[in-house]
């Protein structure tokens, strides 16, 4: 059909362009599952250990809110499924989202798509090639997860259920991104819309799993866990995921056919004839305000979701020695509620790194797009330009974290009536501003070295995430865990504030900031 002419060639070019990116995403996601299979076996060598762990975790709302409903936790398979399926589903969703926007709206925005479409390429070829690419990526992911687990003496059905549920969850959010790419006119905005959808799906399932179960059924992540891998699999939620992915894809095609190339469904509205922007900081704020507000709202809502778990943690964990040990591993505190929320705040802070790193790397986008060149040809120095970006990054990160802590305190206070929680959790969140900025400083240092280096910041986020979630399972040595600023700083409010640690992290941030600044001042600016 002529509508799809050229699809194969496009698909091959996508695979070629994305090969490393695909490899990275898929390998990281498979590693999440595989490391659980390896790790669980070594922490719980015999059934008695597993039984004890299961008893301490089952029906615990705090854990359930983080990782989903507990099923068959007294088996290795059940543990693997429970520990990895939310992370795996979210990673698959993010991978698919980035793949889709990269080949649809981003190409259209840059004008490259126009060139491609002028050749013998059908109107829907790039969309079809993108859809096939996302299906392939998620199929390989599903196969990778399945095969990596089968080797560990786990039943085929459960392994397959885990693999398929992650892959199909990826497809759904790929389709969400495909719809978003038709509605909004920039790739950045499309990522914002689809990313918000992923966040909402996570929160809906967290609340639904703890409280009103109907909410879980509004979330694709909830459906993917509804497969009940290793706990008497039921397969129909997979059909639900596939069905929604198909419906969304058809909707996206329909929207694509109704709009003009380069625009959204509605004509662009005119802007002001005169400008109110007076400074580079004003410009950066204007460019970033949508992202800052979006992340702040997201972190606040996420905080409320965690906070509303309340003091259920205490009730369920109070009498179990093993669970105390697990939960307080590395912490050393005594108050279970406080250490639970300490971990929750670290989790929120790691999520906030998403803003911090993208915000730092916005400079890179501005440089490569040629916008920086225009500004730097005026009386704005590189230092003033970059500090305008860093100011928004620092301010946005701090605001997001404090709001996250505030949400957590408010949510907890509403459920328990303990208003003092706000005073405990806001400072705990504020402390993590340092850690988040440390991660941002690594991104900034990488950018200072070269506009090609966007990866260091994301690697730092991934490392800190691994330390938080998998350090015990991977039996990471303490010094290695301490490389993560989130681990180096005490787990407030369960532990007491450690001035030396805070100053240490602060010094690293300042040194990296100075180094990045010096590097940027000395290097050539790249362009298109």
């Amino acid at each position, binding site marked *: 059909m002529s509508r799809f002419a050229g699809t194969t060639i496009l698909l091959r070019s996508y695979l070629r362009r994305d090969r490393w990116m695909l490899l990275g995403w898929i390998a990281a996601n498979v590693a999440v599952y595989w490391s659980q299979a390896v790790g669980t076996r070594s922490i719980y060598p015999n059934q008695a250990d597993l039984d004890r762990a299961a008893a301490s975790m089952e029906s615990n709302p705090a854990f359930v809110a983080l990782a989903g409903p507990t099923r068959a936790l007294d088996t290795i398979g059940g543990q693997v499924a429970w520990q990895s399926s939310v992370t795996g589903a979210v990673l698959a969703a993010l991978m698919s989202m980035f793949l889709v926007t990269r080949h649809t709206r981003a190409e259209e925005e840059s004008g490259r798509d126009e060139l491609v479409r002028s050749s013998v390429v059908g109107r829907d070829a790039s969309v079809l090639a993108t859809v096939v690419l996302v299906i392939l990526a998620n199929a390989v992911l599903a196969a990778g997860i399945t095969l990596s687990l089968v080797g560990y003496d786990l039943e085929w059905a459960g392994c397959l259920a885990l693999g398929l549920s992650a892959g199909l969850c990826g497809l759904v959010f790929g389709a969400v991104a495909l719809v978003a790419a038709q509605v909004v006119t920039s790739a950045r905005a499309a990522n914002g819309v689809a990313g918000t959808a992923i966040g909402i799906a996570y929160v809906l399932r967290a609340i639904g799993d703890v409280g009103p179960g109907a909410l879980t059924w509004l979330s694709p992540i909830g459906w993917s866990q509804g497969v009940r891998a290793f706990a008497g699999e039921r397969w129909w939620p997979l059909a639900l995921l596939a069905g929604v992915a198909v419906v969304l894809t058809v909707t996206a095609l329909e929207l694509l056919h109704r709009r003009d190339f380069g625009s959204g469904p509605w004509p*662009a509205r*005119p802007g002001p004839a*005169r400008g109110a922007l007076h400074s580079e900081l004003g410009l950066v704020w*204007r460019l970033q305000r949508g992202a800052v507000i979006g992340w702040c709202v997201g972190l606040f809502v996420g905080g409320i979701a965690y906070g509303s778990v309340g003091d259920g943690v205490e009730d369920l964990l109070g009498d179990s020695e093993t669970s105390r040990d697990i939960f307080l591993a590395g912490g050393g505190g005594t108050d279970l509620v406080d250490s639970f929320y300490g971990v929750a705040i670290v989790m929120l802070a790691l999520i906030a790194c998403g803003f911090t790193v993208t915000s730092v790397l916005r400079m890179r986008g501005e440089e490569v797009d040629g916008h920086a060149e225009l500004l730097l*040809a005026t009386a704005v*120095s590189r230092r003033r330009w970059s500090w305008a970006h860093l100011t928004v990054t620092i301010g946005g990160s701090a605001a997001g974290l404090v709001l996250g802590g505030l949400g957590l305190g408010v949510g907890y206070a509403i459920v328990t009536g303990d208003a003092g929680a706000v005073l405990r959790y806001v400072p705990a969140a504020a402390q993590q501003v340092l850690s988040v900025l440390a991660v941002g400083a690594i991104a900034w240092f990488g950018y200072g070295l070269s506009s090609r280096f966007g990866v260091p910041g994301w690697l730092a986020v991934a490392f800190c995430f691994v330390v938080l979630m998998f350090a015990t399972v991977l039996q990471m040595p303490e010094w290695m865990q301490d490389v993560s600023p989130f681990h180096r700083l005490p787990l407030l409010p369960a532990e007491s504030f450690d001035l030396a640690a805070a100053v240490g992290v602060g010094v690293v941030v300042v040194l990296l900031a100075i180094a990045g600044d010096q590097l940027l001042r000395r290097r050539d600016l790249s362009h298109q």
Partner: protein
Amino acid sequence: MTAPIRIQGLRKLFGSFAALDGLDLEVASGEVHGFLGPNGAGKSTTIRVLLGLLRSDGGAIELLGGDPWTDAARLHRRLAYVPGDVSLWPSLSGGEVIDLLGRLRGGLDERRRADLVDRFELDPTKKCRTYSKGNRQKVALVAALASDVELLMLDEPTSGLDPLMEAVFTDCVDEFRGEGHSVLLSSHILAEVERLCDRVSIIRAGRTVESGTLADLRHLTRTSVTAELEQVPDLSGLTGIHEPEIEGQQVRFQVDTDHLGAAIEALSRGGIRSLTSTPPTLEELFLRHYGDWLEDEP
């Protein structure tokens, strides 16, 4: 008054590739200086070094009496730049970008801004994502021309403009020079160069190959002469004559411009009935220099 731009022996390496390899350029005060050369010759790289975006790897470079790398921001108050490929913030309107760039440069002349928006027929309320290439260029041109500066650096500024707008641009540059200011104009549009430039520099593979007024450069090339004579004299003794063709009473040849006088003298001895002498066009000038470049290539 010192020259606003003075470059001697500029070198710029990208890895092991020498993008600029001993480039010389001098723009005098109050002149429009054409900056010509084939694609990839190093014109944009030179301009980006002048803007302090790239660091030079050797040679002397002076911009408005300062160092373009260390004094970048201070010097930029006194100049404006229009890139060849204008990329604007998609979510801002054209008017917002003009005002922002003007303010960051140290202020806009309000009256001139309004006048330029009008003359370039720019709709400043449109979002930049909806502008065509030509309209994006207009935004950058209005922002540059409405600023109170003494030097303009224009990198193929009219490549997306229609002929009417190009005429407006030419007028604007003329007016700017009329105020005693200087312009560095990189361009491939020869009519524009011929119309605007007081002097030109031609570069090739990162090196300056010619520099001077158009009249100077014409001297370096050949004039075509066609004459009808009563009796064709012997032309073989003349130097600087190329491709002579004799057809009955009619003579056609090309002559090195330096030897034109001697050639005409020789013709007049044969009794001239009619004579046309065509000076070299800028195209020919160009092709000669660009052509050599092709011949140099293996």
